[in-house]
């Protein structure tokens, strides 16, 4: 009886093609998984940083008596202290100056590819400060751009007239 031993060339070729296809599929899937994971991490970090920045900016704007926003934002408090917000990619810095000295500094790290703009908008009886976060022009960038965001807050609003209560 002539029993065949080993594998034929066709069997080996079929197996090699199957393994190559499986390897290509798993490599693509893994690359996509890592990419999505990076995007999720970036979005979550952006939301957390912007939330913290929003709270700070809103509190500072409410306490300020005047504001100027030309490139960077300068808020003057009633006691003479100055709070300066500036953006140098990828960080928004908040500096408190009092008596000509730097008293305090905070840093808010935004994702790479973000750009920040400070503007003021005159209102009927005051001023609104607008902080805009938008994706920077990055030709040839591979990852999708960050989400835009805008924070609006009034300078020195008369919040005593607002009667607040517990959230429903």
């Amino acid at each position, binding site marked *: 009886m002539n029993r065949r031993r080993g594998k034929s060339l066709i069997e080996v070729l079929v197996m090699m093609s199957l393994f190559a296809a499986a390897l290509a599929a798993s490599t693509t899937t893994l690359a996509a998984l890592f990419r999505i994971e990076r995007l999720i991490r970036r979005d979550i970090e952006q939301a957390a940083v912007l939330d913290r920045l929003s709270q700070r900016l809103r509190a500072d704007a409410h306490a300020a008596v005047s504001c100027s926003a030309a490139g960077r934002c300068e808020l003057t408090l009633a006691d003479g202290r100055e709070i300066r917000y500036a953006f140098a990619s990828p960080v928004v810095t908040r500096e408190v100056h009092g008596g000509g000295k730097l008293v305090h500094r905070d840093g808010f790290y935004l994702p790479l590819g973000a750009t920040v703009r400070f503007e003021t908008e005159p209102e009927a009886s005051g001023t609104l400060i607008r902080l805009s976060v938008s994706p920077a022009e990055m030709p040839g960038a591979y990852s999708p751009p960050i989400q835009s965001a805008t924070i609006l807050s009034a300078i020195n609003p008369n919040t005593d007239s607002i*009667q607040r209560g517990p959230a429903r």
Partner: protein
Amino acid sequence: MKPAQHQRLRTKPARRGSALVVALTTLLIAMLISGLVFRSLLSVHRQSRTSLQQLQAHWLAEGAAERACSQLQASSAYAGETWRPLISPASGGDAQSGVAEIRVERPADSKQVHVTVDVRFPDDPWQRASVQRSFEFAEKSPSSPNKNENQSSQEKAP
């Protein structure tokens, strides 16, 4: 054929191709698992984008409430408005806009004004986050800092 060889051939089952079946099954299971992980990651990604929209709607509601206060201080005849602040351009140069509907109600038997702010962001009928804020505003009486009565805030997922 010798009897011993014949006996071995009868007891040993045909196993040709069994390794391929095992390998293919393993690969199929692995691909199924990675597909599930991929799907769940996509869903988390979509959720993180939605939470950013909710945050933006919340910031717009805060800004709209402060705008309403500013308008009420400037003019007691202020009756609300539909405010459409422009949000920074998203990718591709399209500007996203949110809508803040400010409603002012003046009860006849009260000096307080009831202000309701409804915010939708983005201004899209299908995918949007909405936030509602309402508060009482003491008109022309800044010396009434009773800050614990009626304010509500409701947030709705799209």
